[in-house]
């Protein structure tokens, strides 16, 4: 049993079958990549995992419990965090405030009325947020407003926010899309570091094969909403069907 078990998931948008009979098993403490051409249904699949979308049929189990029928914040509290394809952060707030929101969410749960305390005097939260920013080499930017940051920095912050929640499963949706080569390599190193430092399972959607092959232990290829093959990176590289459906097209 994997930490994440997706069984026979279907999702239609009107006449479009975005996901057709998706079965996926992600093993604990691995990096599992999901690849496939644009429009294959990768983001839709992630949406079904975090409660943003509800599959038409099928089941999604996380750590033995169904996530279906739960609200997004409840699923997050179960231990799933997601980094989005376009960074989703709190744009009007500064870096430190962004970090503190997720640290408070980790400490206090979905709701806690704490209206009279000074947020900067909540020591553990401040220290945790600062530590995280230090680890991510963003501590100099703590007072910066996120609206004016580069996409790479926004992505970094979003990853930091997700990590501060100490998720058991981290979902990354094209974390290096639109990044320069150097930034991409930094992100690879960062993710490797994250994996090394903690017990965490990572499911990553990625277009950049360099990223996929440097990180993934298992790869699932998705095409037109259906998994084509699932295997180790070495096997995937040589797989004729994959060459044809995806890698060939990309080359």
């Amino acid at each position: 049993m994997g930490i994440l078990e997706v069984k026979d998931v279907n999702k239609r948008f009107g006449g479009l079958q975005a996901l057709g009979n998706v079965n996926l098993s992600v093993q604990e403490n691995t990096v599992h990549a999901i690849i496939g051409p644009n429009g294959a249904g990768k983001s839709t699949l992630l949406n079904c995992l975090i409660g943003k979308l509800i599959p038409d049929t099928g089941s999604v189990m996380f750590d033995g419990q169904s996530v279906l029928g739960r609200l997004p914040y409840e699923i997050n509290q179960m231990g799933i965090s997601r980094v989005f394809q376009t960074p989703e952060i709190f744009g009007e707030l500064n870096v430190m405030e962004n970090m503190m929101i997720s640290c408070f969410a980790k400490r206090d749960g979905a709701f806690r009325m704490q209206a009279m305390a000074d947020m900067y005097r909540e020591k553990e939260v401040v220290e945790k947020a600062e530590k995280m920013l230090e680890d991510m080499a963003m501590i100099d930017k703590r007072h910066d407003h996120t609206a004016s940051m580069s996409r790479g920095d926004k992505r970094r912050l979003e990853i930091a926010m997700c990590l501060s929640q100490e998720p058991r499963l981290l979902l990354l949706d094209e974390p290096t899309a639109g990044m320069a080569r150097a930034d991409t390599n930094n992100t690879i190193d960062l993710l490797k570091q994250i994996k090394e430092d903690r017990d965490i399972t990572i499911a990553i959607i990625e277009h950049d094969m360099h990223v996929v092959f440097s990180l993934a232990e298992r790869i699932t290829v998705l095409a037109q909403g259906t998994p084509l093959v699932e295997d180790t990176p070495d096997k995937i590289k040589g797989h004729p069907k994959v060459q044809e459906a995806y890698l060939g097209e990309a080359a």
Partner: protein
Amino acid sequence: MLGLNKKDFNLLMVVVGLSLFAPFILNIFPKDSAMAFFNGGYPDLMQRFAIFGIFAIGFNILFGLTGYLSFGHAAFLGVGSYAAVWMFKLLGYNVVPGLILSVIVAGLLSVVIGYVSLRRSGIYFSILTLAFAQMMYSIAYSDLFGRWLGITLTNGETGLQVYSNDPQILLGENSPIVPHIFGLEMNARLTLPIGPWEFVFPVGYYFSALFLVLAFYLSIRIFRSPFGLMLRAVKSNNQRMTYTGLNPRPYTLAAFIISGMYAGLAGGLLASMDPLAGAERMYWTESGAVVIMTILGGVGTLIGPVLGAGTIKYMENIISKMNEKLLHEWFGFLPDSLEYSIVWVASWFTGEGWHMTQGVVFMLVIIFLPGGLVEGGQRLAARFGAKSNDTGKTAQPAE
């Protein structure tokens, strides 16, 4: 100090100072001078500054922090007044029970209205709150519930007031028969003539100002708290919040209830100045007024709502008093043709036309100072090289 960082404490002291010295600041022109017309330091207006300041501070906790624009906050102001007058009728003229009940009733009503309205966001939320408030207005205006129950609840279009045959069970032999705080009459005042000046210190004003300072202090604490941070998160990115394991709903509802209670307190204070409550206090234009006050002053800033409320109430009371006769007196020194043309133009913007002035001022501020009067202040401060006295937009760590 008081759990505030230095900057916030200074800002609080500014508000305390302004409140304490308002009778001097607002009566800057000697009593018999021509400019005395512009003095705002009379009891009724000063009380309104404080009371609507409270109303706007509370509104800003909802609108400024969460971005949810309520168009029905006058409903809470209105029920606050009704609740207070009912306490005067049942218990007596001591304002304390009235104020307590007005906050409680407004709080309960905001639970209901907030719970339903917050199921939607954006324009739909605004419309829902507007619809609720207009419903409350109609119910109060026709005394619908009272007629169902066979009693007088709001007294319909006449308005609720205290009659001599009301129970007033706490009314003793020597109790004042006007609103009072443990015997100190709200409309009592001390008049201090200094040379040509005359300064008035009304009890009712200082009582309201005390609540204004308290309301302002609580709002600073909320702005700087983890709760306040979550409210700003609601405004900034509701989606990200839910995917971060936070439930925005109870946070927004709590903000809604708090701001409803502020409005209820303001309504109770209005009734404490003048023991009457009428349905017109719940009319949608009143809900609109608090939106304008907050935006004019600077939405999401700490002091903005207070400035906005003061500006609007000043214009409403002073400019609306300028009639044509007065204008002719002022411009009488000009040649007749010029005098008449100026008065003709000015009369559009004065007296009944004060709404025109309000509209123009509001438009100019929105276009040139989108951050409201606070932004104006900051720009002035920046121009003159002073240290920008930030008023809440960015929170600095307490060091």
